[in-house]
């Protein structure tokens, strides 16, 4: 911003448009919750409600890793493969175990659409690694045995 514009930094509140736009991330979370993922319809509805273009809503949504443009499984398993989890030992073992158990690779969803497996970087739990997240829950000090019980529980087995 050039200096002359700095001069007249006014004592102002955000404009109505700025306030509305600031709601976008929250609105995308709500839409994702309602539609299961951010389908074109979900994005369209969100954009309309906030009076922004679909292109703009998509551009923002696609920037953030927690917004899903593709349908995922009901439970999204995110195994941390950050350096600390790797050094603590077991992060790879955990991924391999889950891959075998669910019969899917990282990035895939089970045919019954129950589980999606992802790897992520650092969940800020390096002191209790290895860690994984399933939807909004964090699980620390994980082992294949614990993961096994957890996945069975979620699958209702």
């Amino acid at each position, binding site marked *: 911003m050039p200096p002359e514009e700095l001069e007249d930094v006014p*004592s102002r509140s955000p404009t109505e448009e700025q306030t509305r736009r600031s709601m976008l991330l929250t609105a995308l979370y709500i839409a994702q919750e309602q539609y299961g993922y951010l389908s074109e319809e979900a994005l369209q509805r969100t954009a309309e409600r906030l009076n922004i273009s679909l292109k703009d809503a998509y551009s923002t949504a696609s920037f*953030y890793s927690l917004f899903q443009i593709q349908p995922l499984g009901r439970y999204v398993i995110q195994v941390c493969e950050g*350096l600390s989890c790797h050094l603590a030992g077991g992060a790879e073992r955990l991924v391999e175990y889950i891959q075998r158990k669910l019969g899917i690779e990282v990035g895939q969803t089970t045919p019954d659409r129950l589980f999606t497996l992802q790897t992520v970087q650092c969940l800020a739990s390096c002191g209790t690694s290895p860690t994984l997240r399933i939807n909004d829950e964090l699980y620390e000090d994980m082992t294949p045995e614990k993961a096994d019980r957890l996945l069975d529980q979620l699958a209702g087995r």
Partner: protein
Amino acid sequence: MTFEKILLRNVDLPNSEKIDVYLERRGYQALRKALYVHTPEALINMVRKSGLRGRGGAGFPTGLKWSFVPKDSDVTKYVCVNTDEGEPGTFKDRLLVERDPHSVIEGTIITSYAVGAHRAFVYIRGEFFMGVKRWMKAIDDAYARGFLGKDILGSGFDLDLSVHRGAGAYICGEETALLESLEGKRGEPRPKPPYPAQVGLYGQPTLVHNVETLANIPHIVLRGPEWYAQIGAENSTGPKIFCVSGHVKRPGNYELPLGTPLREIIYDHAGGIRDDKEVKAVIPGGASTPMLTAEHLDVSMDFESLAAVGSMLGTGGIIVMDEDTCIVDATLRLTRFFAHESCGKCTPCRVGTQRLVDILQRIEDGRGQEGDVDRVLGLCQGIMGHTFCALGDAAVNPTLSSIKHFREEYEYHIEHQRCIASS
């Protein structure tokens, strides 16, 4: 010598996140003192005198940052609490927010009063679901007891505080990217200057502070800047939460004075190296700080001493690697993180980090080519200093520092198609 915990004094108490527990521990007394005994100007001077420096990585003097905010009372100003902790090896802010959110809220209110802000935001990492819940509950309770809202404690000072949840992007921990995200946009950093203290959220003066930084404020107000300044080292005052992870026996958060020797943190507090192996490399302050070696174990963990040995205090996230660690593999993992988190705005960072990963990967896989080490160094030169934000510089630090200390391991990988550490 045991150090009396200041920042982590509450976290192990039962129900430490509850407002009543906090109040029993002299909670919100610093706020009362700030509002009734001190002028905003005096508070700014106190924080300057305390020597407190930012705990999010950059280490900028907090009081100085406050003094950059325009004093005019008719200018709308904002305060943002940066809870976007995501620097690999760092897990202290999550602990504070989940176990002692009121200490951070109290620090935020005092900060807002000092600079005349009436609106504050918590920006929290989208993955921290428990943190979001704890923040919201704590804020509701603070409103109910009159610590937030209109006419706080009858002082005439008003402040509203609300939570904004991020959605998975490391770069949003960078203060200008955080502001973009708060405004509902892609979290791409803004060019600096202007700095947020002058032109920030919605173009208004904005202070963005790390959680741990804010948690220090009530203690400075309550016990005085002189008391605070005698903790730690000369230009690195106060307590610091060190997060220790990797090949140590007792990983975890340890609060110690700044300037504590790295060796003491690793061996006395974190229990030493697993299976009593030797240290090979240590990252002292989170993934973006240059690696050190066993030779540096006597370094004091403060801003100046770490700079003197070619690294940085960063966030205080200490990652310890033992003698069997493959340095190329560790570097590849760290670099992959930065390549993934590059926001894509600047070409040298977007393309350069990916190219860096490709070459490191082929060295790690035993497909390294002659000249790859110099190729990698050349790439780093092309990224460093050529990006809007610090992510570019951060992304090359693991590579540059590991080649500096362990170049022969890279050469061995290329020549023998395998790792020296596992041979």
